[in-house]
């Protein structure tokens, strides 16, 4: 079984080093790949000094393009599982074994680390919390089942999902659309409890203006993906 830890990062020199060290403390023998989205700070050097391999994008692509680059490389290198951990320190690497265990046990294509399943470490602002409630309600009929944390980026995928995402992955604000892409192919996902912590350094890429644009973009992306549906899950 080949597992890769994928850390997308953009200007995260203040946090990415400690994230890598925490990951290596939890699973010492598993390779860690930082996908650097053309950072302008020292993210690449910090990541290399902390023992990670770095896939350095020559041009800023945004989160979706950055994650997809990592998925493409992992697929080409024949990895069986990839678990994505954000480079800002919000995801607790101690939850990685639970995600891996669920991927192997359930045989599903994707496992989401959900901050709402055990109620520990919830760090959402009012607008984000409101958005999550809205997207939960919107996704319920599309997915045919509830999803507690549709905006979580703490996800593990198996090789089948890796093959799909390396070809087709939403490029901006990818988490919610990725669920619909999975459903389009009639793939399965499960959620496991995970802890969410405050970001360690840097700033979120979702500014006040972008937080207004975010739901519009995601709604449109979801709508387009629904139009591409090949058939409902039996």
């Amino acid at each position: 079984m080949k597992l890769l830890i994928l850390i997308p990062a953009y200007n995260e020199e203040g946090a990415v080093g400690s994230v890598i060290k925490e990951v290596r403390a939890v699973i010492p023998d598993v390779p860690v790949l930082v996908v650097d989205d053309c950072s302008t700070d020292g993210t690449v050097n910090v990541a290399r000094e902390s023992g990670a391999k770095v896939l350095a994008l020559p041009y800023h692509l945004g989160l979706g393009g950055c994650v997809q680059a990592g998925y493409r490389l992992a697929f080409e290198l024949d990895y069986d599982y990839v678990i994505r951990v954000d480079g800002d320190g919000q995801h607790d690497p101690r939850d990685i074994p639970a995600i891996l265990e669920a991927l192997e046990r359930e045989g599903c294509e994707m496992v989401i680390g959900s901050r709402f399943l055990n109620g520990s470490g919830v760090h959402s602002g009012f607008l984000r919390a409101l958005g999550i409630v809205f997207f939960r309600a919107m996704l319920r009929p599309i997915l045919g089942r509830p999803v507690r944390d549709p905006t979580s980026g703490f996800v593990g995928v198996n090789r089948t999902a890796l093959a799909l995402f390396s070809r087709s992955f939403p490029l901006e604000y990818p988490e919610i659309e990725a669920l619909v892409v999975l459903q389009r192919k009639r793939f399965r996902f499960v959620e496991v409890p995970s802890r969410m912590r405050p970001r360690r350094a840097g700033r979120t890429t979702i500014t006040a203006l972008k937080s207004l644009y975010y739901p519009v973009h995601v709604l449109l992306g979801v709508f387009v993906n629904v139009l591409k549906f090949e058939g409902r899950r039996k």
Partner: protein
Amino acid sequence: MAVFSLVMAGLVLASVRRAHIRVEYSVSWLAAAMALLVLSRWRGFQEWFARSIGVGDPTVALLMAGGAVFLVVLYRFSMVMSHLKDANIALTQHVAILEFRLTSLDEKIQPR
């Protein structure tokens, strides 16, 4: 409108000559300029068109037609830009992956 069309066609041709616009992307603008030129000189068509869309003044109808033509051109360019962005993303990812694999190969064959 006729003068505007001629100025636009002249600007586009000058830009193509200086290689600021590629020939394939100049076609839409030149076609739009020519369409506007023809429409602006064809009074009978303007009056018929104004009546058809329920506008009293043929000049206003002509401006609306001009706006519609530019919308079509902009739509075509949105498609071109989307395609270019997709190609750019794929290329960027591909270059990064090749560079990663090349570096890994270099590390493997470094003399010890």
